[in-house]
């Protein structure tokens, strides 16, 4: 059934206007990142009278962006990998062996989806384990806060992996570790990829955790490096905008590559089957 053309036209106009509202800020940031200090302060949408490519090299040098980038990458990759592997193993047992205890454990961990992290006492706990103000401490903090979500989505997905596979593998003489790593884990790939991308971006974008837990600038992820750069350079909008462009570039690339996984992951569990 085709809709009449006025209706289609109105829809197109609404969508174009909304897309412009989303794109305009990006355009403004990019275009102003190539201007001189005085010109960028006006934040106009016009093209720069003179393209200042040197803004970027200055920002990379002074904004500690290389260090920030490698820190962010380290935190995101390690914490996400640990949480995902651990949660996949746990979800496997929780989903297959639904004893009263295991069901309780599942909902017990699920409550963590809602709780706020108490960073003040988390610092104290990290001190007890001698990892406060270290990269390891930050990674543990990231890992712990993503466990509820990972367990939730992986256990939901696990129900779609047939139990018969387990039985066949056990009859063939596979132990639990072999069964999990060579049969179950490969089948979990779709949800693992999705959860990895979502949590990776979650760590990349997290601002509050490093704000509380890292006092030395060596540990700063990109986010915090940008924030401190902004604090020092608040009147140099051209540098701030260049800094912003460099920070969001990796996120946008990951988004465009992994788009279908991101949307797939959001919607798993949102739809009743």
């Amino acid at each position, binding site marked *: 059934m085709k809709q009449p053309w006025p209706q289609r036209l109105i829809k197109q106009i609404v969508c174009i206007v*909304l897309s412009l509202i989303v794109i305009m800020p990006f355009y403004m940031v990019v275009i102003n990142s190539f201007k001189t200090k005085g010109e960028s302060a006006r934040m106009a949408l016009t093209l720069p009278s003179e393209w200042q490519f040197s803004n970027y090299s200055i920002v990379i040098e002074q904004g500690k962006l290389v260090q920030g980038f490698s820190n962010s990458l380290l935190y995101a990759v390690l914490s996400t990998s640990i949480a995902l592997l*651990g949660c996949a*193993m746990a979800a496997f047992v929780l989903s297959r062996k639904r004893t009263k205890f295991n069901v309780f454990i599942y909902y017990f961990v699920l409550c963590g989806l809602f709780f706020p992290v108490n960073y003040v*006492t988390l610092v104290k706990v990290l001190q007890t384990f001698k990892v406060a103000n270290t990269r390891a401490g930050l990674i543990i903090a990231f890992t712990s806060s993503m466990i509820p979500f990972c367990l939730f989505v992986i256990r939901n997905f696990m129900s779609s992996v047939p139990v018969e596979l387990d039985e066949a593998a056990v009859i063939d003489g596979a132990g639990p570790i072999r069964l999990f790593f060579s049969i179950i884990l490969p089948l979990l790939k779709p949800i693992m990829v999705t959860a990895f991308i979502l949590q990776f971006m979650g760590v990349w974008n997290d601002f509050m955790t490093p704000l509380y837990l890292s006092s030395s600038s060596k540990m700063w992820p990109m986010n915090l490096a940008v924030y401190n750069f902004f604090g020092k350079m608040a009147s140099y909008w051209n540098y701030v905008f260049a800094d912003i462009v460099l920070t969001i570039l990796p996120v946008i690339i990951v988004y465009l590559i992994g788009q279908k996984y991101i949307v797939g992951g959001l919607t798993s569990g949102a739809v009743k089957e």
Partner: protein
Amino acid sequence: MNKLKTYPQWFLFLPLAIYVVFFLSPGLLGVFYSLTDWNARSMGDINFVGLKNFREIFSADENYSQGIFNTLRFTVISNIVKLVPALLLAIMLQKGLRGRNFYRTILYLPSILPFLIIGLTFKSILNFNTGLLNTTLEFLQLDFLKQKWLTDLDVVWFSIYGVDAWRGIGYVMTIFLAGLNAIPNSYYEAADIDGANFLQKLRYITLPMLSGSIMINLVFGITYGLKVFDIIYILTNGGPGHATQVVTTYAYQLYANGRYGMSTALNTILFLITMAVGIIIVKVMSKQEVQQ
């Protein structure tokens, strides 16, 4: 098949241990420390003071209770501002629109970006003299709409809701779209034959069939709203005055000033609120699982 052997309980150990030690126990410890005078100067000398911190939070001389109220109000309003337009957009984008995949990609884009970046960008856009918003309004001859977006007490919350919606609508919409795609078209065809209008179809088919997506959006939205920090900290840092302080910004301020006991007391209040909300949500969810 021996279930005990095939599904060993020790598989649970790592995530459970990390969760209990580094996520749950700080929360519970927070409840204990909120009853003490713990601060930056008390090197190990921490005294039990009962409910003194909570009395200070709720006393009329202080602004903290306004912060709690602001958090709750933000949770309610920001969700309404995002959910209703997102639902209409999703219905519009679902079918019969050229280039809808392109629009979806664009509209979802803001929600993957760090709040920090969005906050800094909008700090410049909402600037009174040079910001993009006010200059656009001037360009359109709408000068009377110009505002001091981030410093005027009457409009600052609208700015925050606006920026929050700019970021969040695409995300909410994507979840609604997935739900809409799962509704069989034959339902609408049957309704058309019976002569149902748009509102009737919305009321009797779309909304009931979308209950799962609405639930997910509410869960994410409520927990996000109660824990909101980044966007407010960066856009206004609680100002002007204390007008936009929320629980988390107060807690960070107190932490930075070394008043750890008070900071954990505020966190504990937030912990209790989210626990109450969380228990209700988990109960509803586990009930649904039984029904399925």
